[in-house]
């Protein structure tokens, strides 16, 4: 009886170990390289493969984009950046509320932009380490339809070198973060810098 219990206990340990191993190894498989250029290359290559997979429906593609964005884009910092100087003077509760709305807004607009993705070739062409916190990775997209190459620079936040995060995309010299920030600044300026109005505009967008 004692031996049976010991065996049962051992089996349970093995089972837990196997479960943890599977979960851990799966997460290793999902994680991208910590080298900024490799990180971008691996992430985009996987995204292109998923988005051009005809076996996946729109919902599956959207949930993939959301998952990848939540894990690899510094949405929190992007939200604060787009708020401009107001992030330093505003109440933490309202900032938190804004951050939640911003994340939903960001993910919705991102999935909307990428849902109509058409097959393209992607390549990393170089990188520039700006500081210990930032590396700019230069890449280009070669559209499958023969239209001109599109230059994309990625601002990668590397404060934690093991977990690089995307903070901005600069498409043909146009920063998406700056465009977003200036759009929000205009709304804030014409509404007495009231973040609540900006939140309500974001919520309106989410309802569309």
């Amino acid at each position: 009886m004692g031996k049976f219990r010991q065996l049962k206990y051992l089996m349970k340990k093995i089972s837990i170990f196997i479960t943890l191993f599977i979960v851990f190894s799966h997460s290793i498989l999902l994680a991208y390289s910590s080298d900024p250029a490799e990180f971008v290359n691996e992430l985009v290559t996987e995204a292109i493969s998923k988005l051009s997979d005809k076996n996946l429906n729109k919902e599956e593609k959207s949930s993939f984009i959301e998952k990848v964005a939540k894990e690899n884009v510094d949405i929190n910092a992007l939200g604060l950046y787009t708020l401009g100087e107001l992030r330093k003077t505003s109440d933490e509760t309202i900032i938190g509320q804004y951050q939640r709305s911003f994340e939903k807004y960001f993910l919705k607009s991102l999935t909307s932009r990428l849902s109509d993705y058409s097959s393209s070739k992607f390549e990393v062409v170089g990188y520039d380490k700006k500081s210990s916190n930032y590396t700019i990775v230069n890449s280009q997209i070669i559209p499958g339809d023969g239209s001109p190459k599109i230059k994309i620079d990625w601002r990668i936040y590397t404060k934690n070198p093991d977990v690089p995060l995307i903070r901005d995309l600069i498409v043909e010299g146009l920063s998406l973060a700056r465009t977003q920030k200036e759009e929000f600044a205009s709304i804030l300026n014409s509404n007495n810098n009231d973040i609540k109005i900006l939140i309500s505009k974001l919520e309106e967008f989410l309802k569309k």
Partner: protein
Amino acid sequence: MHILKSLKLIIYVFAIISLLTSNSKSTEECFEGTSRAIFKFNLAIDNIILEPIAKGYSKLPDPIKTGTGNFTSNISVLLSIPNNLLQGDFKKLGHSIGSFAINSTVGILGFLNPAEKIGLSPSKEDVGQTLGTYGFGPGCYLVLPILGPSTARDTLGILADTYIDPFAHVTLREKEIFSTSGNALDYYSVKATGVVDFRADNIKNFESLEKNSIDLYSSYKSIYLQDRENKISNSVNEQDEWGSLDN
């Protein structure tokens, strides 16, 4: 005719005064309410006229679209040549002259782009950019009817472009250069074709921007100003404010 001259003079004076306010930030508006109204008008024109034409144009066979794009780009190099000279950028001047000469001859009036294959890549330069390289700030931001986003400096630049652009000289002013002549219709036809070609190339981008913006006017403004900054500096400007965001 007298009214037209007076109007031109008023615009010049306005633009020059705006330029003198060199401390004004690029994001400042000249008259935001009016600009927003003009922006709405332009969007309506785009929806009713330009977008349907661009959609039709985009269905043409690729060689026709590429050839048309090459043709209008080649003509626009003519404006770059005096601006390369005014900016003292002789390397780019060489690229512009070489590209125009090769594409206009070997490239069959510019419909083909053999110059690109031998490494000649002229960048588009205008008087607004030239003034920018001289250190003139953009002045305030405004939206022009039909022409779209602009700044005080770039508005002055648009007017000046018609005086130094050899193509405008031959067509708009009906002067003869190297036995070549034309008329205003030629000028506006080429410009309009260039606009349609650009609009057709960016149908999805415009749709995405419209769909995902919560203030479309500001998105266009930001994109326009960033693009002009990059064109003037001939590089991508870094966003320093990220440095202070360390969380």
